[in-house]
């Protein structure tokens, strides 16, 4: 052991991401069989990220789970499942990407548990919160609401973020 940094991501985030993806894959698989393969591939990419520290694999892990969520949506899976899978995809990517950057800057040997927990806590609470709030809104008011109203709502949200960006 020397001053050399191993540049590999810490394992906690990776394990958490793999477990989460596994759970969401099962969940999606129950309602939409075609979504499951995407989930399995995403899990594989997550394992690769964890072991090799490739940022691109983290992207593929999140991307594939996201596609799984879309497929589940197309196959008419329950709304809450689709929302969970899609937000899970973003959280998984965030988790893996953050662990890769931690690995690059601090290495696997360094103790990074607290930083990882706080980071994943932030993005998971947001994902879960938005999913549940969206679902609640949808189930309370969505019954008779025309789809176009939702579209406008979304477009206005996108407009708002691009204003924030500037």
């Amino acid at each position, binding site marked *: 052991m020397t001053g050399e940094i191993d540049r590999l991501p810490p394992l906690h985030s990776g394990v958490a991401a793999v477990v989460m993806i596994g759970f969401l894959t099962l969940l999606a698989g129950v309602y939409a069989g075609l979504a499951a393969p995407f989930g399995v591939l995403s899990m594989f990419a997550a394992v690769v990220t964890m072991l090799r520290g490739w940022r691109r694999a983290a992207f593929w892990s999140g991307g594939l789970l996201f596609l799984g969520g879309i497929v589940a949506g197309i196959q008419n899976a329950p709304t809450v499942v689709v929302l969970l899978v899609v937000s899970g995809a973003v959280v998984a990517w965030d988790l893996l990407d953050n662990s890769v950057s931690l690995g690059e800057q601090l290495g696997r040997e360094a103790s990074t548990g607290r*930083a990882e927990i706080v980071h994943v806590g932030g993005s998971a609470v947001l994902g879960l919160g938005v999913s549940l709030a969206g679902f609640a809104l949808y189930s309370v008011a969505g019954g008779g609401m025309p789809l176009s109203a939702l579209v406008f709502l979304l477009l206005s949200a996108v407009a708002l973020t691009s204003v924030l960006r500037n």
Partner: protein
Amino acid sequence: MISRASATESEGPTDVPDQDARDVSEETEGDGETAELDADERAGTDENAASPVVESSDEPTHRWRGISAVAFAAGGAGIVLSRPSLLLAGAIGVAYAAYAQAGTVPDVALSVSRTLSDESPEPGDEVDVVVTVTNEGESFLPDLRLVDGVPEPLVVTDGVPRLGTALRPGESASFDYTVTMGRGTHTFDHLLAIARGMSGTVERRVTLSTSDEIVCEPEFQPISTMALRALTTRHAGRVETRDGGEGIEFHSTREYRPGDSLSRIDWNRHARTGELATLRFRQERSATAVLVIDSREAAYLRPSENAPHAVDRSVQAAMSVFPALLKESNRVGVAAFGPGDAWLPPGLGSDQRARAEELFTSNPVLSAEIPDGEFYFAIQAKRLRKRLPDDAQVILFSPLCDDGIVRLARLLDAHGHLVTVISPDPTTTETAGHRLVAAERIARIVALRGAGIRVADLPEGTDVETTLARAAQRWSR
């Protein structure tokens, strides 16, 4: 995007290990602006004891780039396929895009304190370092990455000098590691903190200045004797010469001359033959020796990252030889052959010993870090040759891993300064390249011996005393 910096593989014999903090700082490419903050100004405005900031820069990480695509892809699919669930999923993308946009950089005000288990250790000792970082600012730091600036010559042997954590205002975090000491004064002069907000959109790199110092002064560890060559002064000493006279070891006999001491008359011969003869013994004289330490960049070689480099081992060997020679009433001087100037003219006595101790421990030319500065072989060789007294013999400490130093040894030898080379071996046999370097070094030793220069090879892990005693036996044959 953060580009992935490849960890530099070490090929021994190599020079210094790459430093953690420096590595990390080269890792990010970004279009961030760097703001140089005046340390005093910063310290003055802080009412808390936050460590002064040397350098601070903000860099966007671009990690959420493309998150809006999630919104558009999901939302678009939802509209086209009339699936409300997908449209709602688009809202997730929007929410994360907003999350990324809202991410700000927290204000970083940290105080750093280090606890060293021993502030004046011996070389080779292990010292535990405990670093405690406290958030002195008002804001919560959700993602704080700390990289301690371990001084270059120190080797971390246990633990990791890095930590990833989150700190509420007023909260502290600490991490500890163990370093193996090398000779010299080492300053822990900075700590790199990388802070990210919740979403990690922007990261702030702050270099905090610290001033913990650790002084590692080696002491003289004299060996019992060091075989010098027969180039002596007029003064009495312990180096045996080829001339007959007063002394201990038998040299020859000659015809008695009136005035010869009675104790030196060969009475056995007188009893046998009735002739008077006088015994002559080998005269013992003192010598002038100059210890020349090869401190050129080419001498900073080590077999592995954990091992001390050859200059360190040379200095250590010189510190063993110096008092041994001084004790036998030789005039001993010290010179460094490398960039910079270190010269102690040959002298005697305890003053000389004190001066040498100071030179060995605190002269920057013999420091544990590779010295900066220009080095011109011809000029330095000429300067050294001019300084050497005519009757001085040279004990050269060098790993002998390049031809330049061989040239110096032969040059000094040609100018009548008998040369003895003590060579700490920094080579290994791991790869073919390593073995080639080792073989080249052996060839240099053989060539030097062929030219009548004494060479004592000092392999890693061997004792200076044993090696020199063995070499002295070989030389006396």
